């Protein structure tokens, strides 16, 4: 099987979720990866470790920003170039917006939130997460070409591959595809991206106010974690919107989710139920979150968190 994997970079590095997507593709067949915009060729060659044999690089500067229509056109062009039967990408806010267009260009079936390798014993069947992590569906993809968007942290990263060859790939992108003007970009620098994070520390209304977020940030720093929050916390502007976890916010799937002063409303749980382990710290022993937790501490966040932070540091 010939596979094209669309990869994204962050601060010049291939994103972890893109390495997961390459690893997924490598389990299916020969992987050509595609990178768009200015990226260092040495970094791109490391896609080989995860199983790519080749990387097509469209070094068009106009693609440094994530523009939906030109990205879709470039991915479709690369899919033809690579003769790909399957196009794989990590699910992300950019990829989500792009792959629907790609699937239509290619007449390909599209399934998102994929959590398993396909079963090809009888057609092409993948398992996907549905109902915001509360269930799964087994889906038969019935077209020749397929596009898969893989749920983050659902795939083990392959590390034992070689180096990939990096080839310049030129796509002619019509000016009409660049009708959108980006007037400003605001981005948290240097932080661990929440949707990509292996460990997440989240705070809820129990923290009483934005001025108390230091204890969350300290713990996150010790754990190398991203910070998250509940919806009321972002609604009240204690924290930025992109940190809000749950049904209407970011869906995370880390190996460890630490919830502090969050009651565990079902809409919050919907965003965290794909976490491998959940730790809940709440002063109310009746908080519903404990039912979804692996480990729980009943206690006051303002006392427990500093102690936990010290104990973690001591253990490092």
């Amino acid at each position, binding site marked *: 099987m010939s596979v094209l994997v669309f990869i994204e970079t962050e601060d010049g590095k291939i994103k972890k979720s893109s390495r997961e997507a390459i690893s997924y593709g490598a389990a299916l067949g020969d992987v050509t990866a595609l990178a768009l915009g200015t990226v260092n060729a040495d970094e791109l060659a490391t896609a080989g470790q995860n199983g790519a044999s080749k990387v097509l690089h469209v070094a068009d500067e106009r693609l440094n920003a994530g523009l*939906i229509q030109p990205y879709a056109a470039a991915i479709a062009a690369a899919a033809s170039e690579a003769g790909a039967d399957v196009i794989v990408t990590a699910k992300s806010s950019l990829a989500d917006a792009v792959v629907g267009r790609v699937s239509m260009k290619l007449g390909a079936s599209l399934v998102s939130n994929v959590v398993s390798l396909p079963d090809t014993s009888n057609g092409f069947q993948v398992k996907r997460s549905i109902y915001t992590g509360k269930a799964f569906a*087994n889906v038969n993809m019935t077209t020749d070409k397929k596009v898969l968007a893989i749920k983050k942290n659902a795939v083990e990263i392959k590390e034992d591959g070689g180096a990939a060859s990096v080839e310049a790939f030129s796509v002619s992108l019509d000016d009409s595809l660049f009708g959108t003007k980006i007037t400003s970009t605001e981005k948290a620098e240097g932080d661990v991206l929440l949707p990509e994070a292996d460990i997440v520390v989240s705070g809820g209304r129990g923290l009483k106010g934005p001025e108390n977020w230091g204890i969350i940030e300290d713990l996150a720093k010790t754990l190398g974690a991203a910070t998250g929050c509940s919806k009321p916390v972002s609604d009240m502007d204690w924290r930025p*919107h992109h940190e809000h976890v749950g049904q209407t916010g970011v869906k995370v799937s880390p190996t460890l989710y630490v919830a502090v002063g969050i009651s565990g409303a079902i809409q919050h749980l919907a965003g965290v139920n794909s976490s491998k382990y959940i730790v809940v710290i709440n002063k109310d022993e009746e908080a519903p979150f404990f039912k979804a937790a692996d480990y729980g501490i009943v206690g006051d966040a303002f006392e427990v968190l500093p102690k936990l932070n010290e104990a973690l540091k001591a253990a490092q």
Partner: protein
Amino acid sequence: MNILVCITHVPDTTSRIAFTNDNTEFDKNGVQFIIGPYDDYALARAVELKEQNGGKITVLNVGEADSDPTIRKALAIGADEAIRVNAFPSDSFFVANQIAAIAKEGGYDLILMGRESIDFNGGMVHGMVGELLGLPSFSPVMQLQVEGGNAKITREIEGGKEKLEVSLPFVAGCQEPIAEWKIPNMRGIMSARTKPLNVVEPSDNATHSAISAYELPPAKGAVKMIDADNVSELVDLLKNEAKVI
């Protein structure tokens, strides 16, 4: 301004999810259905834009007759008319084709959707419809201002946000804080009864996928409680039992 808002008819966010018929069908028993929360944001913003600029809001759902109460609710919130494509929404390709067919007829200035449906969470239909119509598509959209034929959009990117300028028409997948959810008032509920809800048959039946079975995740084991005075026990468990740090 002529706005099309595409809404899903989905289980309430607190629903217990279960399946019947040998795990091949969603169990609707005891489940309350609502307008998808993201679609509700799209609708709320459409109502605000109409208040500012005048115009007409059409809501569209691809679904069977049990969607009608959900569609009436959208009419009560402020849509002027509704279209239901009378078919089970079997996959996103099928749904996108139906929406595009309606949109081609309607001459809409804006096509608003939710960032994603909360049943299938694809977040795919807006891009598909954009491609079918040859229009730009954006998602997730956190802010949307319209001035004449142009719009200012704020979209969420991972770890931040970005401001964009684009001309109408286009497709947007909306999320908060684009608008506050609106609750229908009595007048809205009364008038919704007489607003037109046109039921049309699907333009074609092509699909790209089929679900063979559903599964529920394995049940979670019991929680281990740790004394607040003994946090090092938690550190030990995370390190040696869960092996996550």
